[in-house]
């Protein structure tokens, strides 16, 4: 193992922080959210130009051929910079799915996604699923002219701004069975497709997508029919780790602005940072940050080594990192006092981002329970077998 960044990785990280300084000042961001502008297509194109959307795509498919580690470096910077555009959910995730499943058939679309000219969103979750990618009630039926899709998808990040959707729907089997989940590519303007809701609590874009007899051609199917659950789980696992990397950036950002604040804010004639109660809180926040970063490293390691426990370890990572991330950013608000509760200060935006990340791809109850059940079946991973998906 080595923990220092390569020259290339350093350059990548620096390019991200330079971009944030130049294009993502807090006042600019605040003006944008006030105007209801959660997604700036010019900025998304910049992501494309910087290569951030193609980091993990193999070079033969037009990408940079790097790993999830490089993507995590970018995600962490974007978390610190409070970037509204959903880099992980609308950038990395759809690109990874499309290149993995059907690159040759959708080469133009993939090129558009990598360049940041086209935006895709993943519509996989449903209200009862709570993180289980196999729990799919939306269905797709094959008719003479193609597929007909019905159902409701919840918490679709980027839904209001997406040009197309990758949607999971059941083509056979019981509602929760691993077999029978398929993925389809659906244009946003398909008749019968409806977006309900418009934004998430942290100002970013997200909503429900309702499919009401939406017809697509037989070529809309991505990958093999009924076999999408393992692919989906794999891609979502990586996305979870990247969101956790974003959390680390958010935690560090919250800690930095809070440290600065308590050094300058005066009460009782002294800087409030001179009070031991506050110093100890800052110390606890710093401890959680170290833990969070290392938990993300562990999850990245599981991906790199393709461990049989990978998916379970990533569930553990999400439960752990979001819990301590929520606590750390909430204490940033606490130490800011009333100012922390306003839209005018940066610290609260970190907390709200945590609240949203907590909700994406399943919450703590799902992931902790999944991890706990894997403890009871430790022999599974000891034998190098993968746990069934959805457990």
């Amino acid at each position, binding site marked *: 193992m080595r923990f220092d960044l390569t020259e290339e990785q350093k350059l990548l990280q620096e390019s991200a922080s330079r971009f944030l300084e130049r294009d993502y000042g807090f006042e600019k961001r605040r003006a944008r959210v006030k105007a209801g502008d959660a997604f700036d297509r010019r900025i998304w194109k910049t992501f494309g130009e910087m290569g951030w959307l193609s980091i993990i795509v193999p070079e033969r498919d037009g990408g940079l051929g790097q790993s999830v580690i490089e993507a995590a470096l970018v995600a962490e910077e974007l978390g610190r910079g409070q970037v509204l555009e959903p880099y992980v959910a609308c950038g990395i995730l759809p690109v990874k799915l499309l290149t993995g499943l059907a690159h040759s058939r959708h080469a133009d679309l993939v090129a558009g996604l990598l360049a940041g000219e086209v935006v895709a969103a993943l519509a996989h*979750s*449903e*209200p*009862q*699923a*709570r993180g*289980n990618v196999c*729990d799919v009630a939306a269905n797709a039926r094959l008719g003479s002219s193609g597929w007909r899709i019905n159902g409701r998808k*919840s*918490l679709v990040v980027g839904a209001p701004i997406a040009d197309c959707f990758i949607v999971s729907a059941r083509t056979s089997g019981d*509602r*929760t069975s691993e077999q029978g989940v398929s993925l389809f590519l659906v244009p946003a303007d398909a008749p019968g497709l409806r977006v*309900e*809701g*418009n*934004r*998430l*609590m942290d*100002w970013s874009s*997200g*909503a*429900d997508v309702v499919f009401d007899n939406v017809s697509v051609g037989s070529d809309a199917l991505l990958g093999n029919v009924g076999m999408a659950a393992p692919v989906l789980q794999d891609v979502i696992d990586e996305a979870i780790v990247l969101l956790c990397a974003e959390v680390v950036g958010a935690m560090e950002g919250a800690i930095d602005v809070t440290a600065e604040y308590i050094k300058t804010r*005066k*009460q*009782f*004639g*002294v800087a*409030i940072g*001179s*009070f*031991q*109660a*506050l110093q100890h*809180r800052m110390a606890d926040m710093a401890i959680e940050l170290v833990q969070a970063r290392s938990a993300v490293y562990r999850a990245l390691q599981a991906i790199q080594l393709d461990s049989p426990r990978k998916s379970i370890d990533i569930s553990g990572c999400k439960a752990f990192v979001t819990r301590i991330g*929520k606590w750390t950013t*909430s204490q940033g*608000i*606490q130490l800011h*006092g*009333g100012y*922390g*509760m*306003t*839209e*005018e200060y940066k610290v*609260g935006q970190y*907390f*709200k981002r945590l*609240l*949203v990340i*907590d*909700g*994406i791809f399943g*919450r*703590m*109850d*799902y992931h*902790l*329970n999944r991890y*706990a059940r894997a403890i009871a079946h430790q022999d599974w991973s000891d034998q190098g077998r993968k746990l069934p998906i959805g457990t």
Partner: protein
Amino acid sequence: MDFKPDISEQAFRNEVRVFLSENLPSEIAARGRSGYLAAADDQRAWQKILAKKGWSVPHWPVEYGGTGWTAAQRYIFDEECYLAGAPTPIISGIGLVGPVIYTFGSEEQKRRHLPGIRSGDVYWIQGFSEPGAGSDLASLRTSAVRDGDHYIVNGQKIWTSKGKYGDWNFVLVRTDPKAKPQAGISFILIDVRTPGVTVRPIESLEGSHHLAEVFYDNAKVPVENLVGEENKGWDYTKFLLFNERAFYGAEAPALKRYIQKIRRYASLERNGDAPLISNPTFAVRLAEYELEVMAIDMSVAQVIQAGLNERNGGNAIGSILKVRGTELAQKLTDMLVEVIGDYGAAFFPDFNEDAKFRGANHIGPEYAPGLMAELIYRRASSIYGGTNEIQRSLIAKTRFGLQSAKS
């Protein structure tokens, strides 16, 4: 010691319940049960209904419109109102400035202001904190300079709850800049329509505008609006802050309602094929929180029965209940958001603050709006009314005589 419930208290509880079922409008109750802060129009409407019954200021002395109830009865009343979904009372009026006026105010002030507070016709707002004076309230700088039969007020207040609805403002001002910080403060009543007074709402994290800054630019305030004596305002404030902490610190009814809501919603929400509540990871956490809430509820009962307070040896019980109560409120509102799964990440507009969203369609279960707003809003409860850090220092000092080292 005897833990049998009091039969007369039970009868009183039933009387309150009957009154609520007959008089609390169901739309107001539905909004009151949501996680959003009470709507100002609902607060006024409910205050009027209570006033008609003679129940709008139960804790005041009978001569000023109080009910003469025991502390236990008052608590039962507050709890039943809360659990039924009644809007929270206009606390700044009936809980804060009202008692200051009838205790320290002139006969003219009582005659002029108490009726409007009782009836809900006049919405009072508080002007205490300043940008530079939060936890260290005594360092406040808003000044009032005597000029004939007026004070000229200049300065700025912040964190004024419900500022944009305010009719009258009770304000701490510095009248003697040379005295020690606590000694030069006066308590003054200001009509918000006075020229030179400007209210600017603050945008809160959860999306509402219930807080405000209030600016005073050469506002002319008649001398007769001074409460009590000049430069004695700090004493009145201590009296008022004590009322605030003793009555509202633990918020046990709110905690109990959170537990009820979690149980109900988690029985309705599906976790795959089973209700969420049957997820053991979830249920164990709820069990731990419920045990805490049941204990705090018993502490509150004890405080009320014993008439315990800081003045008669309560040993920092107000601070103790405030710290633990707010911590629990934060954990429980967090869990409530977790219950609604994917919909816990969505933004829902505040229909209590903005009437145009009342009855509007939204995604997710009918109980989804307001849960996230309340989670975020609850972060403030460990800040306002004395931060939990300040409360812990108070506990250490009061219980054990421990003092911070002088730096």
